[in-house]
């Protein structure tokens, strides 16, 4: 594994080329949205250099779960999941010499990514105009809560707030119950992934035209694009789709049903009459198929309460994984409502190659999720764990920013590299 660290990009898989080998990313992001964006680039083989501060460490370094319950900035599973294969440079950007290091880093980088509040990069002297002077074809992407323009651009945004702000919460909930969250700061990864798409398109554009660009991404907007059908419904029918639990306007049954065991559940959906027939047969209730209450989608939707009661009474006595296998074997779309433990112990995900276990100096070889894609001819995942804070500072200063050892020692003595 140490050889991967010493390869030109720090991330080479010797047997297969990485698609973004040779692309360097200066990563000024933190929390989740920005790191999720640069995580994609790191998996694709870009050299991603996280610029961090020990005085103000990334929020996720300080959040649980900590390995074996022992807190520490390098021990968070949250940070280590979303920063695989990146390198870490600690720097005091408030110090003029620290800013100079950052400028040299940007001058040597193809892509600069940041998710500070709108305007912060300009204030500290790393705005797009400055970066463009340092490197004419630089690609810069800013992922802010509301975007860099518009009357609300100055508002503050936290990850969990994007779910209600986007309208997702007003559409999510049990029938006749209040609006609900979705369980994670959904706006963050959605912004990060759209950001990664934009960066890759910009790299292709640069390869063709030689020109860089600045991308002003609004997390509010990336959270809305996945709700377009509700926006259209509002305009075409005069009302938004009603909060309706786990139900679906064109499928029934379509729900999450109790399974045997404490807080165990199974999702079952019948896409059409044929799927419903197969389900009824599995339930040992073939007579339900001809039952006028359930003959055809319209009838099943009209009688969905009783339909769900019947299905739920049947599922409640079955272990969810065994029932999943049985229903899938009969061609019914169903799956255990997986917990994090189910995923971690999944023989399917293990066999499919979903997990990575890279050595890490403080937490050992922990199980993480790699990228959700496999490739055949190209390498497609980071080959090192998330970095300890500042682990690569000296090497980056020497090999990327052009400082010699005495200069590095002076910077360190002055407290700039913290």
């Amino acid at each position, binding site marked *: 594994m140490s050889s991967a660290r010493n390869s030109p990009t720090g991330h080479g898989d010797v047997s297969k080329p990485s698609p973004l080998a040779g692309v360097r990313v200066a990563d000024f992001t933190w929390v989740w949205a920005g790191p999720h964006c640069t995580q994609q680039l790191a998996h694709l083989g870009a050299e991603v250099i996280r610029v961090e501060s020990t005085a103000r460490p990334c929020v996720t370094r300080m959040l649980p779960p900590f390995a074996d319950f022992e807190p520490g900035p390098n021990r968070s599973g949250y940070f280590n999941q979303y920063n695989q294969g990146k390198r870490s440079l600690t720097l005091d950007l408030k110090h003029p010499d620290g800013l100079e290091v950052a400028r040299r880093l940007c001058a040597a980088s193809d892509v600069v990514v940041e998710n500070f509040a709108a305007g912060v990069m300009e204030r500290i002297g790393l705005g797009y105009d400055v970066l463009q002077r340092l490197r004419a074809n630089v690609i810069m992407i800013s992922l802010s809560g509301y975007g860099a323009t518009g009357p609300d651009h100055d508002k*503050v945004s936290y990850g969990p707030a994007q779910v209600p702000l986007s309208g997702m919460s007003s559409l999510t909930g049990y029938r006749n119950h209040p609006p609900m969250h979705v369980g994670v700061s959904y706006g963050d990864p959605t912004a990060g992934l759209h950001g990664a798409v934009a960066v890759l398109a910009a790299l292709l554009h640069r390869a063709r035209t030689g020109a860089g660009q600045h991308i002003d991404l609004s997390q509010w907007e990336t959270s809305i694009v996945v709700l377009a059908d509700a926006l259209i419904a509002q305009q075409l029918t005069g009302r938004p789709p009603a909060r309706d639990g786990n139900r679906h306007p064109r499928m029934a049954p379509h729900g999450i049903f109790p399974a045997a065991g404490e807080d165990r559940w199974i999702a079952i959906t019948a896409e059409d009459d044929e799927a419903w027939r197969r389900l009824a047969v599995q339930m040992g209730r073939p007579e339900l198929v001809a039952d006028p209450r359930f003959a055809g989608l319209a009838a099943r939707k009209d009688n969905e309460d009783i339909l769900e009661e019947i299905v739920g009474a049947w599922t409640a006595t079955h272990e969810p994984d065994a029932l999943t296998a049985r229903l899938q074997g009969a061609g019914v779309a169903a799956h255990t409502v997986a917990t994090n433990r189910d995923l971690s112990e999944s023989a399917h995900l293990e066999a499919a190659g*979903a997990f990575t276990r890279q050595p890490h100096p403080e937490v050992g070889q922990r199980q993480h999720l790699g990228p959700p894609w496999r490739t055949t001819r*190209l390498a497609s995942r980071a080959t090192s764990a998330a970095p300890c804070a500042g682990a690569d500072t000296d090497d980056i200063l020497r090999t990327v920013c052009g400082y010699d050892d005495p200069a590095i020692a002076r910077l360190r003595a002055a407290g700039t590299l913290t």
Partner: protein
Amino acid sequence: MTAAGPLAGIRVLEVGELVAAPYAGKLMADLGADVVKIERPDGGDPARRRGPFPGDAPDPECSGLYLYLNANKRGITLDLTSPDGRATLERLAARTDILVHDVHPDEMSGCGIDYDRLCAINPGLVLTSIAPFGLRGPHRSYRATDLVSWCAGGLATLNGDVERPDLPPLKAFGDQAGYQAGLNAVIPSLAALFARPLTGHGDHVEVSVQECVAGILELTFEYFPYCGLVASRLGAKPIQPLCFMECRDGWIFVCCVEEHQWQRFVELMGSPEWASLEIFETRLARGKNFDALRIFLQEWCRDQSVQELYEAAQAQRIPFAPVSTMGDLLASPHLAQRGFFAELALPTGSVRVPGAPYRSSVAPWTLRRPAPRLGQHTDEVLRELGAELADGTR
């Protein structure tokens, strides 16, 4: 300026239904790629039957979900289960940069989607296969709807009414697993294209929808490998207030993560006596005593207006957010001023849909063409291909 977009000149074939592959195709079409969507002749993409429809009247050419996901593409019909259809697919693939599809793994070869075969025809092709459980592993043949993927990926487990263990875990609105899959599919596909001048070949990219969902569980997946703990939607949140409150004209998200945010909010409420109670002193204490806190907060919020409270909190740098309705978004001066919405023409009238969620300094986003009518561009594309219009391929 390249008004055509950063992916101008890139050719994409999409064999997609509902959201996953169509959203991947849309992302590339919106960035300027020439995307040709292949639909089955008998009814086309099921998104055509999803709606929403004008006046709730079903019409396969007026489904809102379809019109949104397939604008900026051309559409052809091809029966991929017929030898002629597969032959046409191969001729199209010969001149294609990226072929993205969400045909189920068990049906891929029957539809002519076979990497070895297509690669022999076009070594530079990037074939991107989106499958509910990927192309490898014992569950590769499993079927999924969007709800099933959301649950298999572990996200549904994290949401639901904290106080009602009898109610099931709750999905998020819409086909969110599909959107996540579409996004994740584009990333390695464009990267493979970026590498092609150096490597001289394309690649086969396999995307698992289950893994796309599992990859966004925030901090919860690692609770098991790091601490042996199982995450659940049940149980109180450690930090409060981070909750929805009902105002006189809607709902607001009350969000005080840092102590100074809470203190400013208390001032904003006029420093009521209850706020100085010891049980509300720290964010952890407020989490522990949320049952009491909620009653006080709800009583105060009930008289407020969402917009006024949102603006007042934001003026103090407290990150509150409204629980926006669709009407709120359509009326937002901020979104309007950023030019976020685009006007999509319908047979009668038009609707506003989201445009690009980012502004680029070089390539303005444009709605170049509406979504195709079923088979609208079949002749045009086949003419381009110089193919014979044999019966059975129309």
